[in-house]
């Protein structure tokens, strides 16, 4: 980027001062006068018919003001229409919402929940997606529909996505070596530190205000309108500027519909705060995958064919469009890095009686990357080649079409992996392990994730003092998008950050946006804000042109003044474009007015065009970002414990708009990658969660991550012309490579290839023990 004013610099996160002082207000901190507390009754059965629900005792408790069941709410035709807000005639997993209450206190709400009597009749249940999709499945949970292109779906198949290129059979026939493996990944929880919160207030006209910590405010607005059966204009979604994390599980509707429905019955504000257990059971989780991968390679390491068959464990329902999207997008993890002339991929998303799979940082790509990047090392080993060399040999480069027919551009795989190799001193053997029972080695992997290029809009209001207000419905779950939006405005108007204020998301004021997911925020909001600045300038310049006796096209702005390009002394302060009434005129003390208008607001929408493949076929518009990681670790062969000596993570952010925030994403990604890579897995017994709490489900503590000098982060810039100011979306790619890099290092150290992720201590110890036993 040339000559930036503020962009690209490490501007302080505008929200940090509030956050470190304890002043930052989150949805959980909000209260309203007369507010009631809500609780949800959840299914204790994995799959059962509801024979009856008796709420009379609950309703009779004084202070209990609303009790609702599925019968009170319309069934939503949310694509594909399989999930009611509250269960109708059956429950499909343990944790499924059955009824809800609102009462004057939490204690009363809990009493009411306990007083609701539900009669169930158990139905057969299925928990393993491979069983569920087979002929032998004990049950079909939802009748299967048709997939894309009218494909008839098999047992329990919710979604299918396929891609193919070249001639697979021919490819395998040409290969010198065939490598086939099966990999699995576990179920994980986003586990944001702030639970899901919805505070809804429905007035007597059915106007509904919802304060919540959603990642997708406009979707909540639409869905709640459908649940309440009112026009969407009656719904106002307000998101406090601070959200205590999201990572995917706060996308789409969660408790907002239930809280609103309760509030409409009680005609009082109702607050629903999910318990930690509910966050585990009832918000969406990371889809577990089973991935079959078969590769054909030449002796020199050239990939000639690859087929992938992935089975995604959907859980009991589909989280709206997310289910189909994860099924589709998981494919991106298999096509962004390597040239594969003959390629086939089939992803199946399959229902089971478990929590619902949804958006989770990595969006399916983390799972496919795990398989592909483990597989690349296996190929190298079978051919007696260096794992880095095999990777470099097969990389897609700018100008290549990838196996899904995307024209590759700003490819960052080589620079990131080479830099990672350099910093881990690839090729130099690892030092001796510290523990006498451990073995030590290095591992490497390339992460590549698409970022969706979605629709967003933004508006900039110019205040009468010449400062700027940014209106966007992109929520900031901690990544700093509010700061980046302020930076863009400061950049465009050449003003200090203090002249820019980003207001909180409020669908009555802030314009349409498609939600904070898929690493899409930087690109879509960046463009929307940039375009809104352009429109705002146009209006400003038009107003200034007459006063400066210049053509609007000859004007520019900086430091709060509009001036004629080339003659900066012909200028006017922005605030002078507002008219002060003369002293004594009616209303003069109310501040300046704007001639012929109420507000100086410039709005714009960013709408990406589909991309086209070589034959003109439409493809969803995406970009690819890269993050390669290398690790030096030792693993205790007796206990399976992994100790990381060094972890290098190199990101290709395009051109970062804020260095410090980008590094923050790398850091957070490493934490997430280590957590989901070696510690975290939701476990079940007959569909019942056995670790739905933060003690047994272990997200990394300060003791589980490497020391500060053992974590090495860096960035390698690429030239992504389509991005706003060249930036890419980066929030998810940073989590994709960690687990494979670790597994690859474990293999080098011990000879053991672990094919199931996460690489928990028990799993690694068991794999080593089995391996040792097989050698005697």
């Amino acid at each position, binding site marked *: 980027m040339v000559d930036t004013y503020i962009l690209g610099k490490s501007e302080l*996160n505008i929200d940090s*001062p509030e956050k470190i002082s304890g002043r930052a207000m989150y949805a959980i901190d909000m209260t309203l006068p007369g507010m009631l507390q809500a609780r949800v009754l959840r299914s204790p059965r994995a799959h059962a018919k509801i024979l009856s629900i008796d709420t009379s005792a609950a309703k009779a408790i004084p202070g209990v003001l609303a009790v609702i069941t599925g019968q009170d709410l319309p069934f939503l035709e949310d694509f594909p229409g399989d999930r009611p807000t509250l269960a109708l005639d059956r429950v499909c997993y343990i944790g499924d919402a059955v009824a809800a209450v609102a009462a004057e206190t939490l204690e009363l709400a809990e009493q009411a929940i306990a007083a609701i009597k539900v009669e169930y009749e158990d139905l057969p249940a299925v928990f393993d997606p491979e069983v569920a999709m087979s002929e032998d499945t004990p049950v079909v949970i939802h009748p299967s529909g048709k997939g894309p292109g009218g494909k008839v779906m098999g047992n329990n198949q919710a979604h299918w996505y396929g891609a193919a290129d070249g001639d697979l059979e021919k490819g395998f026939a040409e290969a010198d070596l065939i490598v086939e493996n099966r990999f699995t990944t576990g179920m994980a929880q986003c586990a944001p*530190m*702030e639970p899901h919160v919805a505070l809804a207030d429905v007035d007597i006209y059915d106007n509904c205000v919802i304060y919540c910590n959603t990642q997708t405010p406009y979707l909540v607005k639409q869905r709640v309108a459908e649940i309440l059966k009112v026009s969407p204009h009656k719904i106002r979604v307000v998101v406090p500027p601070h959200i205590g994390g999201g990572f995917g599980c706060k996308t789409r509707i969660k408790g907002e519909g239930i809280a609103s429905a309760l509030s409409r019955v009680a005609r009082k504000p109702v607050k629903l705060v999910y*318990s930690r257990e509910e966050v585990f059971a009832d918000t969406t989780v990371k889809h577990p995958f089973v991935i079959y991968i078969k590769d054909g390679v030449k002796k020199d390491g050239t990939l000639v064919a690859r087929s992938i068959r992935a089975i995604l464990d959907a859980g009991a329902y589909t989280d709206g469009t997310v289910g189909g999207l994860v099924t589709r997008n998981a494919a991106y993890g298999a096509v962004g890095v390597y040239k594969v002339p003959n390629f086939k991929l089939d992803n199946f998303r399959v229902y089971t009686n478990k929590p619902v799979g949804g958006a989770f940082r990595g969006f399916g790509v983390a799972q496919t990357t795990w398989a592909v990047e483990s597989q690349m090392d296996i190929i190298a080993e079978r051919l007696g080649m260096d794992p880095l060399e095999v990777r470099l040999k097969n990389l897609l480069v700018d100008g290549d079409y990838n196996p899904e027919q995307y024209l590759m551009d700003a490819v960052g795989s080589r620079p990131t992996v080479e830099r990672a190799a350099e910093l881990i001193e690839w090729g130099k053997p690892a030092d001796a392990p510290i523990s006498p029972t451990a073995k030590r080695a290095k591992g490497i992997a390339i992460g590549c994730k698409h970022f969706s290029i979605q629709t967003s809009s933004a508006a900039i209001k110019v205040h009468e003092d010449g400062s700027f207000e940014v209106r966007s419905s992109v929520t900031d779950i901690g990544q700093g998008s509010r700061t980046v939006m302020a930076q863009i405005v400061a950049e465009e108007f050449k003003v200090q950050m203090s002249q820019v204020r980003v207001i909180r998301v409020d669908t009555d004021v802030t314009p349409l946006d498609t939600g904070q997911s898929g690493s899409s925020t930087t690109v879509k909001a960046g463009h929307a804000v940039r375009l809104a600045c352009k429109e705002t300038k146009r209006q400003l310049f038009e107003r200034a042109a007459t006063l400066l006796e210049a053509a609007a096209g000859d004007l520019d702005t900086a430091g709060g003044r509009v001036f004629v390009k080339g003659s900066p002394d012909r200028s006017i302060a922005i605030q002078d474009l507002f008219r002060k009434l003369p002293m004594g005129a009616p209303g003069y003390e109310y501040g300046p007015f704007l001639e012929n208008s109420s507000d100086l607001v410039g709005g714009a929408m960013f709408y990406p065009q589909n991309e086209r493949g070589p034959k003109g076929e439409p493809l969803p518009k995406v970009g690819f970002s890269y993050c390669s990681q290398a690790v030096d670790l030792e693993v205790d062969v007796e206990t399976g414990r992994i100790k990381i000596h060094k972890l290098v993570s190199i990101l290709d952010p395009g051109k970062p708009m804020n260095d410090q925030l980008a590094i923050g994403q790398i850091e*957070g990604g490493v934490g997430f990658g280590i957590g989901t890579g070696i510690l975290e897995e939701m476990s079940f017994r007959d569909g019942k969660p056995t670790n739905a709490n*933060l003690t047994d489900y272990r997200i990394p503590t300060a003791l589980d991550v490497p020391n500060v000098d053992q974590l090495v982060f860096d960035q390698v810039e690429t030239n992504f012309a389509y991005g706003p100011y060249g930036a890419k979306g980066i929030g998810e790619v940073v989590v994709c490579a960690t687990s494979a890099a670790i597994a690859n290092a474990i293999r080098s150290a011990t000879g053991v290839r672990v094919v199931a992720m996460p690489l928990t201590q028990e799993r690694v110890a068991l794999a080593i023990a089995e391996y040792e036993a097989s050698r005697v």
Partner: protein
Amino acid sequence: MTKAEVRATINGRERELRVDPWRTLLEMLRDDMELTGTKLGCEAGECGACTVLMDGKPVVSCMSLAADADGRTIETIEGISTAEHLHPLQDEFLKLSAFQCGYCAPGMIMSSKALLEHNPHPTEREIREAIAGNLCRCTAYVGIVKAIQNVAAEGVS
């Protein structure tokens, strides 16, 4: 219903409160006193978001009864800075942009304050042990640990 009397010094001021005997300290602070800087993440002693100092020691307030605060000194995030002056730890956390969503920040800051008051020159391991009960989902604790190290190196004022 008998209420419990709680006389405590909260953020430097003597307070007298009457609370239900089963009410937690977290509920008393957040709901009764509107000290919402102290966060709620699990209500089961697992996340540390609700950490406050009781007689200078960090406690998870969701697992303490409000009644247990009787006769004690309680410090929350709201009590460690003034409108003009931040605590040195807050200054340093700010400078390093140590947090992202910031939800863990109040608890983390209280735990590190307690650490430095009783061990002004901790090793990295000791820092990590002291904050091991404070979960942060957004970071890998890099800025957090560094900030505590920096303040320790400068000495707490």
